[in-house]
């Protein structure tokens, strides 16, 4: 149980990576952008991969009537997400410590994992909603208007995960370092649960 608890603590602490590294990354390449433009999505705001990428993305997006990329104070998520993540880290560490002191049951490790998963899925759902709004809620005076074959206005929603072609742009959307650290952390808490369970079974047998 001691080992499992240590892994639980490490796993939770890995979420702190989200305060330093981007959660997600979206790259936009095009023939006239051989060095793609890119944005890194952090839990507290969006930044360009290169210094002027956001300005240049906004400059291009005005042709299709997209809103500018939101500043941190323009979205409630950017103030709430850090609090949620920090809470989960603290909660995870506390659970781990109590586990180490054998004060709690290993099943709480799984509880933490399930809670985090639910929150994560909610976050993804919210993020995807924002992408839909960003990509389809367009200025009616937009310079370039393209419709789908069925007559509906084309959406410029970037993919949540993976690759998509949007007009002349190749858009790739993937988790970034912070996101990977979070996934590893969550996976570790799952391992902690499994090890805790094993240790508990052994104890029961003995």
């Amino acid at each position, binding site marked *: 149980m001691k080992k499992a608890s240590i892994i639980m603590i490490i796993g939770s602490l890995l979420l702190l990576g989200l305060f330093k590294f981007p959660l997600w990354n979206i790259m936009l390449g095009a023939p006239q952008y051989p060095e793609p433009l890119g944005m890194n999505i952090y839990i507290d705001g969006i930044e360009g991969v290169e210094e*002027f990428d956001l300005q*240049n993305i906004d400059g291009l997006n005005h*042709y299709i009537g997209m809103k500018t990329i939101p500043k941190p104070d323009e979205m409630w998520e950017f103030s709430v997400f850090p609090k949620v993540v920090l809470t989960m880290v603290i909660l995870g560490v506390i659970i781990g410590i109590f586990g180490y002191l054998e004060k709690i049951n290993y099943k709480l490790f799984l509880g933490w994992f399930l809670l985090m998963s639910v929150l994560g899925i909610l976050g993804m759902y919210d993020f995807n909603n924002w992408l839909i709004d960003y990509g389809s809620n367009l200025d009616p005076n937009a310079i370039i208007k393209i419709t789908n074959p069925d007559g509906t206005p084309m959406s410029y929603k970037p993919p949540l995960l993976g690759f998509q072609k949007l007009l002349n742009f190749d858009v790739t959307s993937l988790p970034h370092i912070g996101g990977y650290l979070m996934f590893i952390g969550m996976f570790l808490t799952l391992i902690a649960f499994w090890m805790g369970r094993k240790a508990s079974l052994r104890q029961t047998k003995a």
Partner: protein
Amino acid sequence: MKNILKSTLFLGLLVAFTSCNNSGKSGGNGALSNNIAEKVYVAPGEHDSHYAFISGGYSGNLTVYGLPSGRMFKEIPVFSQFPTNGYGYSEETKPMLETSYGFIPWDDSHHPDISQTNGELDGRWVFINGNNTPRIARVSLRSFETEEIIEVPNSAGNHSSSFITENTEYVVAGTRFSVPVPQRDMPIKDYKGNFKGALTFISVDPEHGHMDIKFQVLMPGFNYDLSHPGRGKSHGWFFFTTYNTEEANTLLEVNASQNDKDFIAAINWKKIEEYVNNGGGTMMPANYAHNLLDEATHIVTSTMKKEVRVVNPSEVPGAVYLLPTPKSPHGCDVDPSGEYIVGNGKLSANLTVHSFTKMLDAIENEKFAGDAYGIPILNFEDVLAGSVEQPGLGPLHTEFDGKGNAYTTFFISSEVVKWKLGTWEVIDRKPTYYSVGHLTIPGGNSRKPFGKYMFAMNKITKDRYLPVGPEMEHSAQLYDISGDKMELLLDFPTHGEPHYAAAIPAEIIKENSLKFYKLADNKHPHKATNEGETKVVRDGKNVHVYMTLIRSHFAPDNIEGVKVGDKVYFHITNLEQDFDVPHGFAIIGANNAELLIAPGQTRTLTWEPKQVGVWPFYCTDFCSALHQEMQGYVRVSPKDSNIELSWSLGDDI
């Protein structure tokens, strides 16, 4: 039998002619000749391995080429106005062409040379001389823009320039024409003994590259033709070829070709520098312009300087010597080790090579043949390292491959001859088409030549390309010199008179190349860094428009209240922060040029409206899908109109 012999002979002759023709057209024979195209082929999207900076000669510019493709990438305006981007027309850049004679919008640019550290190319700047109105320019290899021009007083025909010492301590500006110093009204026939040749040493600030005339050596009234710095063991010395040591003043083609030997002047600049640092030399009244670009404000400031320090060589014993060199030497080239000084006597049958070691030895032992105006003349035999016997006709310039070989151009026999240093034997010769002047090996003027390519710059083009009337661009020819034999690879046209060139491996500079100017660093006094800062201000008859550009509109795009007789200053800032997105600005009836404004830069164009009406302006550089919509109007009212200044953007939507 006789017939067979005849036909064999005939066939032999035919083969000889054919193969000669082949070697001329494709540069080689046999199976290997058919991969020449591959050697210069740079596939779409691929980069060349070398930059070549080829002087534009009488275009006053510097052109940037890629090797081995021979593609031209850019024309950098230096001494000439350039309507393509408004250099020399915009208010910010006009001061760059100021001189003591006023605004001079043209010059004859000759010899580019790349800055060095420890005798190796460092790729920070290119220096180039203006030949006609003596000037030296410094071009940044970060922005590829002319950043500084300094005028050279007491000089005329600034030809033996602009070569630099091996740590870029000095760039020299040697006068081709000797003139009265100081200039005065005097009979031309009294030239001899009265005219002087100024050899100017311009110091270069090691960090910023800023130039300043440290001293001028006032030499006898010869013609100082070309020069090269010593390097390695001869670092600290500078060598200048001379002609007209006869000091003739008329019909020079005859009168300056009388002496069997002219001189190479060897200047120990370290010795003179020490003398000057200890207060030596005299300050002399002078009047010359120093024009400097401030990268933060994007503005050139021109300052007139009022004095210059001159040194009479007889004041500094042991600093200047004359090396007799046959028959009006033109090129003056020092090999990478610094030991050999090649003096190409253009009327001589042989190529003369002097030895630096022997020169020092002769000086040590005071073996002098006499003196000229107090300057010791050494004995020809005492300094001669050797000569290349009858290599061709009309030797001009020599470069080195760093492998012990030298390559000399022959103007009259139109060829490049490869020969070996030390043994003086001819190894190879290849024809050029036609009448070759300079040749360049990347790093040729350094301790470390990159001896893979050599290109020759020819003066006469004739039938090399499709005919385009009597006047043609000149031609350059690229040779592969990596093997024992030279191989002609490519023939490409160059702009103006490609006088000389400097070349460098691309990786030394391409990573440092600027992609755009940071708007946040723009300190231009008339900048507008966002559309909120745009405005129009009247100051008497002057109207200042603070305008911005971004894909795809001007801000403001409608301006009213301008009157006939006003002078309108369009101060335009390009708000883009993206690589290669300049915007243009042109307005009907402007008596100058357009502007091309780099991202993050501010430029000013003046416009004096002369007719009442509503006049359009537009973007000239195709910037986006809506480039054609990037336009605006200025309403011009009569002189006595009382319409107030107003401006707008997007109000009617």
